[in-house]
């Protein structure tokens, strides 16, 4: 493998990893703070992809505006969903949460089938993002992939800023380590959970929207990405956003280079990675508390 | 096993030296040494946050020490897991009731007793009629005074009853060393009397570590008392000496929290 190909694969790995990070950060937030395991998280990703498919014709070149619009819509959807459904799951045991969210996947898939049909779709990137950009002297790289990585980085930085530098983020971090204390301090924990959940949904949907021009939009796309997301959270440690970032990038690299070197077995590469991490550090990479 | 000690001190069964446990920058327990002898009730007292529960957790094997060693009858067990220590003869009861609520009182004790006699391969034999764990469980339940309640669900016991069951489950594993974490908490006067009588009967053949807040009970039953403050031992002596120890008086009466 020559240097150019290697660099291109590295960029691909980073791009894939960053998209995974968006998805996983939402999942790990929801789990870390509310303690709910959510199988339907992949459906939110699918929601984003189908949103992109539906909104792209309306927004034309205004891709960024479309992203923000879609994020807002997903946020509202997540807010309502938490109120209507997820808030009832907090007190239930894991098995019930698994089954309820599994049932939710079935419902979402069928609703999608009823509303948009079962066809496979493609989403066109806007004109100003198509084509390739030269990197250095010998290499060109698809513009959209660079955009995807850049968008994810911007969102990740925004997430870091909110979680670590704002009052909301402080409440979120406090809620993660001690729910009752936060309630005792008079903070409206119900509203807090709702916001966190909605944010998680928006992050997943954003990932789906950004990814839509790169992969096709098809039924069941939520399922496969969900499991990879779980692998990321297991490796990175539940509740840890930093852990999710490191783990996402690791998975991105293993998956991308796995496809290059071990075509047939590439699908199992990330699971082997997870197995190795489990042997070495069952709690995940980021230690949580003492 | 040699017994080079004096006539009124029994064999040292459990010996911890320099036990330390750090959480981040804070040392919850700092260089604590303690000896548990057969025939002795060794009480550990101290203010809240003194590190008593952390100490017990390190002795039982639930928490790994950051430093220090633990020896059971001479063998270094510092790295041993809790189940291994339990099978070797270290039993404990919990400060916060830690029983099998769903099962009957009898099954609670019987299951604990089964640990010494697991017989996994004998699948055709029913557990409830096991002729080894059954009698041991019955005896333990009788000893703590729960005989009348043996058939009912453990979850239905009163708070005091559940504390008694805690002890019974500890006894059912037939340990040589008993680590009792606040066994008297929440017990009424009559139950406390029975428990003290039981401890008195037990100590002849066992080494007992007793973490307690009930000072009357401690001074009645303990043969030796260790006082902990802020994770460190400030005194270890017989009760009469502890009563008049100036450092102890300061800790309890001076800077009381």
């Amino acid at each position: 493998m020559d240097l150019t190909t290697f660099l291109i694969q590295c960029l691909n790995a980073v791009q894939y990893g960053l998209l995974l990070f968006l998805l996983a950060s939402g999942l790990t937030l929801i789990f870390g703070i509310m303690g709910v395991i959510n199988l339907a998280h992949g459906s939110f990703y699918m929601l984003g992809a189908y949103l992109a498919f539906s909104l792209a014709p309306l927004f034309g070149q205004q891709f960024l505006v479309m992203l923000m619009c879609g994020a807002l819509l997903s946020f509202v959807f997540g807010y309502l969903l938490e109120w209507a459904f997820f808030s009832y799951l907090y007190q239930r045991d894991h098995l019930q949460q698994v089954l309820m969210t599994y049932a939710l996947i079935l419902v979402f898939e069928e609703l999608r089938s009823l509303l948009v049909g079962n066809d496979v779709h493609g989403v066109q990137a806007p004109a100003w993002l198509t084509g390739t950009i030269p990197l250095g002297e010998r290499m060109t790289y698809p513009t959209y992939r660079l955009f995807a990585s850049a968008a994810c980085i911007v969102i990740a930085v925004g997430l870091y800023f909110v979680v670590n530098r704002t009052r909301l983020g402080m409440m979120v971090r406090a809620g993660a380590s001690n729910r009752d204390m936060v309630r005792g301090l008079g903070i409206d924990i119900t509203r807090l959970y709702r916001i966190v959940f909605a944010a998680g949904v928006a992050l997943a949907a954003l990932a789906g929207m950004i990814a839509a021009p790169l992969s096709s939009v098809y039924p069941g796309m939520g399922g496969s990405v969900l499991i990879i997301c779980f692998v990321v959270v297991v490796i990175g440690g539940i509740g840890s956003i930093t852990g999710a970032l490191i783990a996402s990038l690791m998975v991105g690299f293993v998956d991308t280079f796995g496809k290059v070197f071990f075509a047939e077995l590439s699908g199992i590469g990330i699971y082997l990675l997870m197995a190795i991490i489990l042997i070495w550090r069952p709690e995940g990479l980021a230690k949580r508390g003492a | 096993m040699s017994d080079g000690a004096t006539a009124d001190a029994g064999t040292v069964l459990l010996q911890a030296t320099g036990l330390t446990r750090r959480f981040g920058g804070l040392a919850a327990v700092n260089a604590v040494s303690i000896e548990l002898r057969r025939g002795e009730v060794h009480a550990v007292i101290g203010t809240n946050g003194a590190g008593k529960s952390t100490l017990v957790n390190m002795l039982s094997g639930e928490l790994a020490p950051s430093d220090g060693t633990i020896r059971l009858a001479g063998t270094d067990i510092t790295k041993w897991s809790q189940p291994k220590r339990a099978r070797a003869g270290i039993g404990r009861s919990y400060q916060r009731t830690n029983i099998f609520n769903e099962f009957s009182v009898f099954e609670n004790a019987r299951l604990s007793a089964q640990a010494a006699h697991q017989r996994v391969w004998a699948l055709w034999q029913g557990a409830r009629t096991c002729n080894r764990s059954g009698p041991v469980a019955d005896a333990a339940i009788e000893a703590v005074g729960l005989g009348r309640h043996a058939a009912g669900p453990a979850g239905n016991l009163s708070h005091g009853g559940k504390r008694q069951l805690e002890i019974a489950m500890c006894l059912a594993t037939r340990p040589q060393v008993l680590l009792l974490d606040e066994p008297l908490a929440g017990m009424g006067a009559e139950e406390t009397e029975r428990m003290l009588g039981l401890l008195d009967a037990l100590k002849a053949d066992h080494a007992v570590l007793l973490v307690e807040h009930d000072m009357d009970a401690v001074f009645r039953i303990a043969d030796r008392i260790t006082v902990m403050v802020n994770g460190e031992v400030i005194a270890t002596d017989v009760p009469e000496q502890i009563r008049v120890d100036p450092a102890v008086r300061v800790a309890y009466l001076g800077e009381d929290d």
Partner: protein
Amino acid sequence: MAETRAPTRVLPIASGVPPAIAGGGSAGPRATDAAASPSGGPSLGATLVPIVGLALLAVVPFVAGEYLQDLVVKIVILAIFALSLELLAGTTGLVSLGHAAFLGIGAYTAVLAAPKTGAGSVVVLLLLSMASAAVYALFVGALSLRTRGVYFIMVTLAFAQMAYFIFHDTKIGGGSDGIYLNVKPVVDGLLDLKDRNAFYGFALGALAATYGLLAVLLRSRFGHALAGIRVNEQRMRAAGFRTYGYKLAAFVLAGALAGLAGFLIAVRDGFVNPEMLAWQESGTVLLMLILGGLGHLRGAVLGAIVFTLLKELYASEGLVGPLLAGHWQLTLGLTIIAFVATMPKGLIGLPAQLRRKPRAVEIADDE
């Protein structure tokens, strides 16, 4: 690894215990042990119902038509699958979301190990199926049992997906197309599983054997220990049980029994494909358990029955109309949500839930 024990071990009822306490007989409390205990307790219902059920099932080939018999066989095999997970999730409290992997591996082994021409031996193929499923269960269990709670759920799901990809992407199985079993296996001279009734009898026998084995297991010391691990693992460790070993044993056994169900599916259909290992199948079997009622062997079987009938119902145009029948997953999903929300103890637990005896004492919180 010599364990240290002092030579003297005296039972801690020495002198000093007031006679009033030491008086009770030891036979009494145990004989009337009516309190909740590990599943498979001695109640009349628990022993009669399975026997009656078995008798009814045995009669089916003689009275029912082809469609009905096929439906019953489907339920019987799913019941075995559900029972295998009951051991893991219901008894031991290990919620695995990757159990379909072991079913699939058992099924694929049955086909891959079968001779290209001529009939294979039932005994050999069955044992190989169960063994291969058990081996993968050993690998998955050894690693996933190092985790707890939600991690465990996610890890088991991931390892099942790994198995899915192995069959889907590589040439081991025929890729996403699956592979065919050319000739159904026989027991020389005695049994040809190609015969519909013979297969029915065999499947029913397998169900009876699985149920019986699990019933015996659950009342044994091993079974009681598993239940103890479910209720309070920390206490089990404090008493001296190596809980990891117990959990791993349960995991492997559950995997082997799932392999048995897989073998039966492969023989019944003459065909296997990677979708058998899909995570949706793992979700489905968990669903059966909660439908029927977790913690009871009867619940697993009941759950398999109810789930299969519901699915048939929701997918039949004649009963729900073409629109809903085409989107039966929607009705199924909504049913599941309603069910889990209102009947968390499943159908077996319904009578108790309806009676609604308030608990005298609050149960201590476990998490």
